[in-house]
């Protein structure tokens, strides 16, 4: 009851939820950008080197993200490969053609 009354009178001034939402969106973005420094750049380069030994890919389509959680963080590696990604197969096709 008292909480409802509080909402009724305080509703118009309740700007905290807006602050919270803006922060969450902003920080999700900034953590991605800042994560690009040092560690993630190295990781991205090395992953790219290993994968492109075997698979043809567009370097811009390799996305490495680090998301911080309460107890663990997740490293997300997103690599987009074209459908005819197998380098050997592609080379063989070229030879045959």
């Amino acid at each position: 009851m008292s909480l409802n009354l509080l909402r009724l009178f305080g509703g118009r001034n309740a700007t905290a939820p807006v602050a919270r939402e803006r922060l969450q969106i902003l920080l999700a973005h900034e953590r991605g950008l800042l994560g690009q420094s040092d560690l993630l750049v190295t990781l991205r380069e090395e992953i790219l080197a290993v994968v492109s030994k075997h698979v043809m890919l567009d370097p811009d389509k390799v996305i490495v993200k680090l998301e911080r959680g309460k107890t663990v963080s997740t490293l997300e590696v997103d690599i987009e490969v074209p459908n005819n990604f197998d380098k050997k197969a592609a080379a063989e096709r070229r030879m045959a053609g």
Partner: protein
Amino acid sequence: MAKVLVVTSGKGGVGKTTSTAALGAALAQGGQSVVVVDFDVGLRNLDLVMGAERRVVFDLINVVQGVAKLPQALIRDKRLENLWLLPASQTRDKDALTDEGVGRVIAELRSRFDWILCDSPAGIERGATLAMRYADEAVIVTNPEVSSVRDSDRIIGMLDSKTVRAERGERVEKHVLITRYDPARAARGEMLNIDDILEILATPLLGIIPESQDVLKASNVGTPVTLNNAESAPARAYIDAARRLMGEEVAMTVPAERKGFMNRLLGRRAA
């Protein structure tokens, strides 16, 4: 074993120096030997908040550069015999500090004290990175306000990457200290509440310091708030926070001002 604790925030004016002085004094009141170190080279203020501004002879930079020995630069608090201050230089600039030199001073302080509290300058540049460089623990001072929370998030990222511990693959133990909190405004949805801040920063809470006139009163007279009026709401909150740093389990509350009759009548509720 000595602990090096950095008090940091990114944003200026959120209460780093006040919190360093209050936590340092509260730890010393709890029987620990404590040194508070001012890393804000060029804009020192910890000496003023501690009431030792007229007793500064040598400073951190003099010690780093070998001009003075550490014992010559340390200032003993007049009220607590196990509380000491290592002031920053007011005339030099922050480039006078070197990573290696700071490392040497911190190592020497470790052999003399239980707690080394490093008061970081605002910002994310050299002074701030050197203040956190050798830390075992960090207190991230945050106001319930968007720009402060954003900067805290940035600092947390730096604690996880730019410290000696992080480089060794170890963790800096991080704590959020929320200052200038107004429970009534948070309850009305006018101010970010504690849960919002903790969820966003994903870092455990050390304490909640309520907005209070006692903080300004204490700095006016150059006394850490926990010594100036130990019964005041912010002092009790800092004392609880210091006990948590020492490993005690203390229930998390927002100490309230003892309100007068009119405030009660107007329904200003304190959590």
